[in-house]
């Protein structure tokens, strides 16, 4: 039995090794090299790229990325929890509502980001409507700022928060909530002291599934932030294209990976359900 399974795993091993792990190993190596005269890499080995990370410019970008990702995650939690609650109580229509939540997500991230460009720009739908209604006199700069990026990220990753929350809420024993009410707790108290703690694993899962992609976001800050809202992802892309400073770009990438791994190590508990 074991030999067949080993053969079945071989192709995946090959792909992961050659097309995922090896490339990561290469940029790990690159992060310790120097930028070539015309871009790319050259000797000598140095830790200079990592030292540059401490520069305030880059720390600002790091901080902004954390802030945007954090705010987006919190919004997703606040918006997603009631929605997950609603679906978990909807009885027969659960599957329908879940599909409705997931459907937008699977229809092209690019298109969904573009949709907000369409809505938020100066001559976009929202400004046009507000002007027509006489509520404002000139276009509001809704696009190309941190807020637009957060909106785009929340829109993009809300389903990732709703699903794990729904999973834990669905397994919640209704009797516990009734017991809480029976013992004299008001709805808000039951929510905060019983429901939320019991959903801790779902909240953790949702937070991880939202925060990490948001931290490493590229497309959303690029299209909706328009260069004014530079996040780590934009910085990395920039280093590998325009600036052609591969060592530094690699260092930033690895720093990002390190942060992601630390977060996972801190937040994922052994008894949380795995996907694989």
């Amino acid at each position: 039995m074991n030999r067949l399974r080993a053969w079945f795993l071989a192709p995946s091993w090959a792909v992961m090794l050659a097309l995922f792990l090896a490339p990561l190993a290469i940029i790990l190596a690159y992060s310790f090299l120097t930028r070539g005269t015309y871009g790319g890499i050259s000797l000598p080995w140095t830790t200079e790229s990592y030292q540059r990370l401490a520069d305030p410019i880059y720390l600002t970008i790091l901080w902004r990325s954390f802030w945007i990702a954090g705010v987006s995650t919190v919004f997703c939690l606040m918006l997603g929890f009631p929605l997950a609650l609603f679906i978990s109580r909807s009885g027969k229509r659960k599957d329908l509502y879940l599909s409705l939540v997931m459907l937008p997500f699977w229809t092209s991230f690019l298109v969904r980001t573009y949709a907000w460009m369409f809505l938020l720009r100066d001559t976009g739908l929202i400004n046009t409507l507000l002007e027509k209604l006489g509520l404002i006199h000139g276009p509001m700069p809704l696009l190309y700022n941190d807020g637009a990026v957060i909106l785009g990220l929340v829109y993009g990753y809300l389903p990732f928060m709703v699903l794990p929350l729904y999973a834990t809420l669905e397994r919640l024993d209704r009797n516990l909530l009734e017991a809480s009410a029976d013992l004299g707790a008001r709805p808000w108290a039951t929510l905060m002291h019983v429901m939320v703690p019991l959903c801790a694993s779902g909240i953790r899962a949702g937070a991880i599934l939202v925060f990490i992609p948001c931290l490493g976001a590229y497309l959303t800050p690029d299209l909706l932030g328009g260069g004014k809202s530079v996040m780590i992802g934009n910085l990395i892309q920039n280093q590998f294209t325009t600036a052609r400073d591969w060592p530094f770009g690699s260092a930033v990438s690895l720093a990002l990976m390190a942060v992601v791994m630390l977060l996972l190590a801190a937040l994922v508990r052994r008894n949380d359900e795995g996907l694989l």
Partner: protein
Amino acid sequence: MKRGGVGLSVYALAAFLFLHLPLLILAAFSFNASRFTVWQGFSLRWYAAALQDSQLIDASWNSLIIAAVATVVSTIIGTLCAYGLWKRRAPVLTGSLYLSLVTPEIVTGISLLAFYQWIFRFLRVQLGMHTVILAHISFSIAYVVIVVMARLRTVDAQLEEAALDLGANEWQAFRYVTLPVILPGVIAAALLAFTVSFDDYVITSLVAGVDSETLPMVIYAIARRGVNPVVNAISALIVVGFGGLILISERLRTR
């Protein structure tokens, strides 16, 4: 807890509108005769423009070919992998698959670019369709494994033992018992891999060659320059197409 009932329903409605309205509006304005955000009559001119644009058509073909090849390969490899991981531990491989899911796309993209450029010192190859396809296979496998694995978990482990007991060897047990039972999950995984591949921008833009422009890359370029109703039209087509595929995928996944 019943008191939250109406308020919760109203909120849910608002949330669903939030999720779906932007796309619906986008699609609605793809039929706008004018290129401005003022409705000036129903028209299909943007669809016509989209379907006649040679750059768009070439890019669409590229996307289709890349997605088709990457899907077939990653589904086969991923299904075999999920089966191999079923009831058997392979911590390093599982770890790598997890890692490929949490690694930001930009990092995966640039690492592949660096990898390819390094390889190109030894082989006389360039960036092109093949580099994109390989990249897509790489990031799609984890998705396939997850979906197929979820399906495998619902399969009674004793079915294979029964097959072996009745005279089937390991390969026959997989082929005649397990594979047919998980087939809906495999197809669902394939549809998922297809949409993920077709829609990818970040990684593709970094490893595509000059002649392997994909549809997302063209859309991005146009969108970067500002809003263009042709993008609305293409978007509407993509949304409908993907939406349909995903609905089928969901049906199959839970059959």
